[in-house]
């Protein structure tokens, strides 16, 4: 097994933006309890910008750390900028992830995309 970077451990031990947003206007949930990870991303969008973001995660150290990191990366960004953030960028921002844990960063990216999609669907009209 490969070790986690210090940055991963920091985000795991002190995750940023944990919780729910009661008046979120976009919510995305991805993952599967069978596989051992679920991420739920709440976003509050105003004027096309992600004003606030919070997450809940059931999963391993990498799942928690990538959730935490991606919330930092997308906060204050426009929806287009947030959609542009790739799982690779999340992993890089954490100074890397062990190869077997790369799917966790994928999940974080998907959770953000799902939340933005949910927002767009609700605001189509």
């Amino acid at each position, binding site marked *: 097994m490969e070790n*986690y970077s210090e940055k991963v451990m920091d985000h795991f031990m002190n995750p940023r933006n944990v919780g729910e947003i009661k008046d979120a206007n976009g919510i995305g949930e991805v993952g599967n*309890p*069978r596989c*051992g990870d679920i991420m739920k991303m709440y976003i509050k969008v105003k004027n096309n910008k992600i004003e606030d973001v919070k997450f809940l*995660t*059931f999963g391993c150290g*990498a799942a928690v750390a990538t959730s935490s990191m991606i919330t930092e990366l997308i906060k204050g960004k426009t929806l287009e900028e947030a959609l542009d953030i790739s799982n690779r960028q999340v992993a890089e921002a954490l100074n890397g992830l062990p190869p077997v844990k790369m799917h966790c960063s994928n999940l974080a990216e998907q959770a953000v995309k799902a939340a933005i999609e949910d927002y767009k669907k609700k605001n189509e009209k």
Partner: protein
Amino acid sequence: MYYFDNSATTKIDKEVLDEMMPYLTEKFGNASTIYSLGIESRTAILNGREKVAKALGCSSKEIYFTSSGTESDNWALKGVAFANKDKGKHIITTAIEHHAILHTCEYLEKQGFEITYLPVKENGIIDIEVLKKEIREDTILISIMTANNEIGSIQPIAEIGKIAKEKGIYFHTDAVQAVGNMNIDVNESNIDLLSFSGHKINGPKGIGVLYIREGVNIDNLLHGGGQERRKRASTENVASIVGIGKAVEIATKNIGKKSEYLINLREKCIKGILDKIPDTIVNGDREKRLPGNVNVCFKYIEGESLLLHLDKLGICASSGSACTSGELNPSHVLLAIGLPHEIAHGSLRISIGKNNTEEEIDYILSVLPDIVQKLRDMSPLYIKNK
């Protein structure tokens, strides 16, 4: 450091290391030589073999030293399968064996053998009636572990041995977790082959034992020199043979007292966890269980996260979650006892050893509830069910 992973490995006893040291330094002779230095090594091996034989209740000529529990398991299965393939090609084992058995069985399946994997009940113990029904004319070997490494459940090996003997089938047991934790007598339990290793009983790593009852038809696994009565080639690991001999002698002496001590700590730990942490499941049988084994599942959380938090506090433990093994599924043992995947991911094994103290149990009990709650508070499964 708070070391609660004694089923993974144990700290070597000082007494054991002290007896080994001369054979790692000045007494380095090859045991196959005729000069005095070699004779010293031969004598040391002889003593080690006698100590192991005494612990298992067998003759010392039935003890073979290997490099590990894994090698012993490989040898027992492949050796018996290949030597007896003209008699039959059917082997019975269980769904909860260690991978040293399961993956060897998968290999044997590719070689044309048929393997029956017995299910276990919710408590992690096989149903003897199911075993009886699965025995066929062409069954050549039954391999069932004495005690499980994850959930600690103890199998009825004496009953299994009796059935195997009546049917004329060889009985192998992987006793890696059991030796030193419970009394084992290979004759009373009609065991034909038994594996164990040094490092689980406060001895050195890199040494194992395979007990082979005299007369058992078994092929060699390693071919080469004439060591181990021509059955297992390789220059003897003298220091580790001395070490495993001493370790097994210490581990089996006062076994009753030691297991009583461990059971006390185990029950305190289980009770404390259940009292302090709701939505917790105890895995394995509550009575027929290794003295030092605690295995629980905390609903709504994942095991690796739990281990990382414990590690930050200096606590070493283990989990059957997928993320701790690098696999996609949680432990095959937890699935075999009927746990759903999402619950199996939240398992914690605390394996207590003789060096642990009551104060250490108090410590883990004092920090565990907050860690579990912290992880639950960020778990969407918990928030949903709250």
